[in-house]
């Protein structure tokens, strides 16, 4: 694995009025790395992810993407750089088929005179290729999302995030809403992404998730970097301690 740093956040602070949500937080992730971010409610996980995805502008500090300083003004900016967010509430339209959801807002079209018409064939083909690449099994690309199980929906959400050569995918509690037997599939999918060279940031409070897919784990506590370690050099108990603000 190359040690090329894809994304780096340097001394990020974020203030909401008098409240300090983040204070001097650093984060970096290399190509194909899976980074777990843990922390108690209010530790600043969500705020940090919103800063990374361009939804919030940091009050202080800067972001570097592949070594270049970037200013993100909206999630569109981060998407254009290759950073995608998989939301906890999935953000899928249940009434539309899988393929339509994956390409929503970025549908392949064909030109006919002055008009752009949807290229249904191409969308279907791209969908099937992409699902095959991620080893996601569904009956058909035309199946409506509302007919899918929770795990399959999560897979579609991840497929959507990675359809346009994403370099980094941020997942907010990717297994929180899933049945136990489906958790494994989503974790496999994260490992697939890693093998494809995609960097993944997983926010999770489930130690099982963290310890089965992550290379490295970092803990936030009250808006600051609290602790960080490669997975090999830590243990569940230690990470749980970090979440509660305990360090030996």
């Amino acid at each position, binding site marked *: 694995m190359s040690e090329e740093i894809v994304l780096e956040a340097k001394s990020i602070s974020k203030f909401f009025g008098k409240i300090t949500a983040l204070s001097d937080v650093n984060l970096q992730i290399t190509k194909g790395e899976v980074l777990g971010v843990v922390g108690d409610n209010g530790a600043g996980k969500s705020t940090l992810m919103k800063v990374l995805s361009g939804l919030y502008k940091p009050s202080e500090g800067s972001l570097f993407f592949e070594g270049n300083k970037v200013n993100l003004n909206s*999630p*569109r900016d981060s*998407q254009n750089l290759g950073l995608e967010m998989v*939301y906890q*509430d*999935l*953000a*899928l*339209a*249940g*009434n*539309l088929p899988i393929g*339509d*959801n994956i390409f*929503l*807002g*970025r*549908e392949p*079209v064909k030109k006919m005179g002055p*008009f*752009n*018409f*949807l290229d*249904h064939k191409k969308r279907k083909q791209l969908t099937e290729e992409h699902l095959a690449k991620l080893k996601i099994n569904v009956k058909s690309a035309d199946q409506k999302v*509302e*007919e*899918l*199980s929770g795990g399959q929906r999560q897979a579609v959400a991840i497929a959507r995030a990675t359809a346009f050569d994403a370099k980094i995918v941020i997942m907010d509690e990717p297994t929180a809403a899933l049945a136990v037997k489906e958790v494994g599939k989503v974790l496999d999918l994260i490992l697939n992404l890693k093998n494809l060279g995609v960097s993944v940031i997983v926010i999770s409070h489930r130690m099982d998730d963290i310890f089965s897919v992550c290379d490295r784990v970092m803990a936030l506590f009250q808006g600051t970097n609290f602790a960080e370690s490669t997975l090999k050099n830590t243990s569940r108990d230690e990470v749980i301690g970090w979440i509660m603000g305990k360090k030996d």
Partner: protein
Amino acid sequence: MDKNQESTFVKLIPFFEKYGILLLILIMVTVLHILQPDVFLSWRNITNVFKQVSWQSMLALGVFMVIVTAGIDLSVGSIIMLSLMGLAIASKAGMPWYVVMLVAPAVGFLCGLFNGIGITLLKMPHPFIMTLGTLYIFRGVGNLISGGVPITGFADEIRVIGNGKIKLESILGEGSREYIPTSLILMIVIFFIFWVFLNHTRIGKWIYAIGGNPGAARAAGINVNRILIIVYTLCGFLAGIGGLILAGRTNSAYPNAGLQSELDAIAAVIIGGASFFGGRGTVLGVFAGVMIMGILRNGLNLMNVSVFWQQVLIGSIIIIAVYIDVLRREFSTRK
């Protein structure tokens, strides 16, 4: 219900979802043909049904798009009246027919734009409120500009749209009285254009996406407010076209034009299988819904069934249609 029975029932749902409505029309036509063998399927009666539904179908098509976004437009009946009045005043002012013809769709367009801007920019809690308001406003304005009295007599070029006949003498021989109403051709052309729009363009796809999950549409970078403004504007525009057709049919602009026709439009959309929860329904379904309402009214009239019974029947069909939608959701959605 045992397991086996249930699974066959579930398997049949997609079939009925697609073709059930056409089956229903076929049954209605067969029954009416048996009950009224000489009259119902006669050329004259069938063209009459099409002429009746042509202006109503414009309202239904517009309201359908709005309902797909999980919205509602109660003002279309008033838009049709206001656009009709606008047309009549332009006509009385002596404007050339090709300008007069543009007035009705233009008035409808502006009314729809007003609705769309109100719903999105004023952040109304629900489109029901905004369009309930404009239901009163548009009809009030229509009466203000016309003085609340009917205006009659339009140029032949205007009348031809709602009342024109394409004679079939060249096909069926000299002296044959069969014809195709121009309004039927216009209706088919417009339905086809909107079918293409909703099924084969990105904006069409986004309209369905917004009805399915507006949050997902927003997360996908779709400007939801912009799409909603487009939808309400097109709905108003179609109501304006409806006004133009009605002008030709009645040769008159009258204060009660289109009164309560918004409810007929909503009924046709719901009967046609669109879901009131948004995101679901087809243009063909709307066409079928409009035809079912038209055939039902026509058939009951032919059999001298009282208007009161017609109301009871149409109301019952709406409830049954929505109940079928509820059942469909229960069976097909995995939670």
